[in-house]
């Protein structure tokens, strides 16, 4: 992968800065001349942010504002920050059938976010998004969002970003005394393992260990053969039971059918028997009729009695003997008319004698002469009456006894109406009684006609049949439930048997799997060990070569060389050895240049061994170096790297101009106008804080980038 260019907008001081990089193989060096505090580190940070986002920033970027610091002052409440990187890399593409070819593809990456600055230094970042395009001759093609990360990872793996994007001071961390030995080792180890992808192998080993363990766990101590037989026996037993139950169900169902037919016949017979009449019901009806009959009988009896009493009814007699009675009564009347019938006065006369006065008012008082006279007369009359003949008396009695009686038609009328009413009543009662009696007779006949024993027997039979049907039905339900339950158990047992069968098969397979997993694990472990040892050795060897090259030491040809070897130990210590393989403390026994050299040599050795073709972007790598070592470092960087991008100060460029002349494909300068007037010679052309690019190379300057020289500052 090679960087082609980068446009940085509103990334701190880099308000609108375009960086261009050399991709020419013959001139792999890009020099960006920048004084201190001119945005070198910011530029590198911007490139990292562009590639990997906020997670590449210190503290995940939460406290790392990206927007220009003067945004608030300039009244900007919303700042869009963007970094656009063009890069190229070789991609294996299947062409012409099966064969793969490496094709150089150009990509454009653009990362954007919005920051809202807040007075006091706070801010919020939002809407961070990443776009990736493939740049073709006919335009750009967006890369699917899901593939962006993999493309970037293919370009420069994120784990290696600190190796490829570094600065001279950071590289010193591998050997600096400030860190403990453990920390230094870990840094070296991390760098080696990241670059060589050893972490992936370690991760693979762990995964294989987990798999092997899982396979091993599957190898339990259960006797699956015995279990299989047991389940098989159960299945056979279930089959037998199910068959037996099903047969019984069929039998019962047949029996129920037969019983239902029998029940139907019984019911028909019962209905036929009951059509003659329900005896109980008929008996009840008869009882009702009997009551009615009794009432009618009593009423008729009363009516008849009333009729029978006519034999003692005087009106009957007087109407029947009307003519005869008339003759006699005529005679009596004649006698009465002739005064032959004594007045029925004797009682009256006798009553008068008991009175003091007559009814007419005449005195009958015996004390008076008139009264006494009258009394005497009355007594005489009484005596005369008594003395009348019995004939007259009898006639008189008879006359007066019949005087108020009616005879003939009148007497007839008197008894006939009552007789007719009683007669009608009697007839009605008699008729009703006859009707009721008729019904009773009919009921009796009906009742007698019912053979109760048949009905009872049929009812009993019906009840027994129904009970049998119910019992069989209940049994059928029970059996159906059992069949269902056993079928479920059978199904479960079959599944279990299949599982056991599978386990039996797997038992043989699992062992092989465990063995395979363990073997793979061993292989990977071996690879790791080999990589570690071999690659370590290779890196060590390479580091040594590059280091000695850088510092100009040739211990083979010059036994006086004070630094004879640099090595990377198995403990991941970077060691430098002096005369007699005496270990030298890099932090104390090496000068600054050598320290820079060893660490850069280590980085270069790593990148070379990793076979990852990626740019080395190094900020001020040549600090504390000079002369041969400085030049050697630059040459080694150019020789060992595929694309070298160096941010160099003016001082770092001193004495390597020829190298830059020969090997740099792109050189330009970035200037911070804030250095005016202290360090910059000319007033800046911008009125805000921003880094400005000019095309001045390592040998010239312009109004933008001209710096004041020391002679200018200290003019005599």
């Amino acid at each position: 992968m090679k960087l082609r260019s980068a446009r940085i907008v509103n990334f701190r001081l880099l308000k609108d800065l375009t960086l261009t990089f050399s991709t020419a193989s013959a001139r792999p060096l890009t020099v960006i001349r920048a004084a201190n505090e001119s945005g070198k580190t910011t530029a590198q940070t911007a490139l990292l942010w562009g590639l990997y986002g906020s997670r590449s920033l210190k503290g995940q970027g939460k406290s790392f504002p990206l927007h220009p610091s003067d945004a608030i002052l300039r009244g900007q409440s919303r700042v869009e920050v963007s970094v656009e990187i063009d890069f190229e890399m070789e991609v294996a593409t299947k062409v012409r059938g099966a064969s793969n070819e490496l094709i150089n593809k150009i990509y454009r990456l653009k990362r954007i976010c919005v920051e809202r600055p807040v007075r006091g230094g706070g801010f919020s970042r939002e809407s961070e998004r990443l776009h990736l395009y493939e740049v073709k001759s006919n335009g750009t093609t967006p890369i699917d969002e899901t593939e962006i990360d993999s493309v970037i990872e293919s370009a420069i793996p994120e784990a290696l970003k600190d190796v490829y994007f570094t600065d001279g001071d950071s590289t010193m961390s591998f050997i600096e005394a400030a860190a403990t030995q453990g920390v230094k080792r870990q840094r070296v180890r991390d760098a080696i393992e990241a670059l060589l992808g050893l972490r992936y192998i370690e991760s693979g080993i762990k995964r294989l260990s987990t798999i092997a363990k899982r396979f091993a766990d599957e190898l339990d101590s259960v006797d699956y053969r015995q279990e299989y037989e047991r389940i098989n026996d159960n299945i056979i037993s279930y089959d037998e039971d199910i068959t037996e139950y099903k047969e019984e169900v069929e039998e019962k169902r047949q029996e129920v059918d037969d019983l239902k037919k029998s029940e139907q016949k019984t019911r028909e017979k019962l209905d036929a028997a009951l059509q003659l009449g329900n005896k109980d019901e008929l008996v009840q009806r008869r009882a009702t009729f009997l009551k009615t009959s009794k009432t009618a009988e009593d009423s008729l009896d009363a009516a008849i009695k009333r009729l029978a009493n006519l034999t003692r009814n005087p009106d009957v007699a007087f109407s029947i003997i009307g003519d005869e009675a008339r003759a006699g009564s005529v005679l009596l009347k004649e006698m009465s008319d002739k005064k032959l019938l004594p007045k029925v006065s004797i009682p009256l006369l006798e009553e008068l004698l008991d009175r003091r006065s007559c009814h007419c008012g005449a005195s009958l008082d015996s004390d008076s002469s008139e009264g006494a006279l009258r009394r005497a007369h009355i007594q005489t009359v009484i005596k005369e009456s008594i003395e009348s003949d019995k004939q007259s008396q009898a006639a008189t009695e008879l006359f007066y006894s019949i005087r108020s009686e009616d005879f003939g038609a009148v007497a007839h009328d008197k008894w006939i109406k009552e007789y007719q009413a009683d007669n009608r009543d009697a007839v009605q009662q008699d008729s009703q009684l006859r009707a009721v009696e008729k019904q009773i007779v009919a009921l009796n006949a009906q009742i007698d006609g019912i053979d109760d024993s048949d009905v009872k027997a049929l009812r009993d039979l019906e009840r027994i049949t129904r009970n049998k049907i119910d019992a069989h039905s209940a049994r059928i339900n029970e059996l159906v439930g059992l069949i269902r339950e056993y079928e479920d158990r059978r199904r479960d047992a079959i599944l279990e048997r299949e599982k056991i069968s599978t386990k039996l098969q797997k038992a043989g397979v699992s062992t092989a799997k465990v063995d395979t997993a363990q073997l793979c694990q061993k292989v990977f472990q071996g690879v790791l060990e080999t990589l570690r040892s071999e690659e370590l050795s290779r890196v060590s060897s390479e580091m040594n070569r590059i280091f000695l090259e850088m510092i100009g030491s040739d211990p083979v040809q010059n036994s006086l060389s004070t630094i004879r070897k640099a090595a990377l130990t198995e403990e991941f210590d970077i060691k430098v050895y002096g005369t007699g393989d005496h270990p030298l403390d890099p932090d104390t026994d090496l000068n600054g240049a050598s320290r820079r050299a060893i660490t850069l040599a280590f980085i270069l050795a790593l990148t070379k061994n990793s076979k990852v073709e990626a740019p080395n972007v190094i900020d001020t790598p040549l600090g504390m170096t000079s002369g041969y070592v400085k030049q050697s470092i630059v040459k080694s960087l150019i020789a060992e790297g595929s694309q070298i991008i160096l941010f160099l100060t003016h001082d770092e460029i001193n004495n390597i101009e020829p190298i830059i002349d020969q090997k740099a494909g792109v050189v330009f300068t970035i200037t911070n106008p804030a250095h005016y007037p202290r360090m910059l010679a000319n007033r800046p052309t911008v009125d805000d804080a921003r880094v400005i690019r000019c095309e001045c190379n390592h040998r010239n300057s312009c109004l933008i980038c001209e710096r004041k020289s020391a002679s200018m500052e200290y003019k005599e």
Partner: protein
Amino acid sequence: MIANPFASFDLFLPNAHKEKIDKFTKTSGRKEGALISPFPRQIDFWFSAFLFGVAKNLAPADDRDSYKFIQGTILSTDPYRIATIQLVALGRAGDPSVLTEPKKMLDMASRIVFAATPFLISVLDDPEEDKPLWALLGLYETLSAKTLSTPK
């Protein structure tokens, strides 16, 4: 109340019809009894026979073969019967002196009864009539109706 001149005399019914008379005068109190035996007492039969004989103007009959069934005092329970017998006797005799001869009147009545009894029984025994009581009442009705055209 009228005196009972017949109190000291006995009343008789013909022996020949005794059984029938007993049948028609059974007083059991049952409905069927009254229908079959419409006369509560023998005296009621005797008097109905008297009425029947008078109404039909049957010739009095002598029947020595008779039996005493009760004393004349029974007539006091229905005094109108006494008056009826006397009235009929008076009407037939045309002479009030008959009223002084209770035996004579009673004999007359008895002879009428004797004459009427077989007829009465034949009416009661009429097979066309459902029950003797209905036959008797029918007889009463018929005999009574005959007087409708004759004013008092």
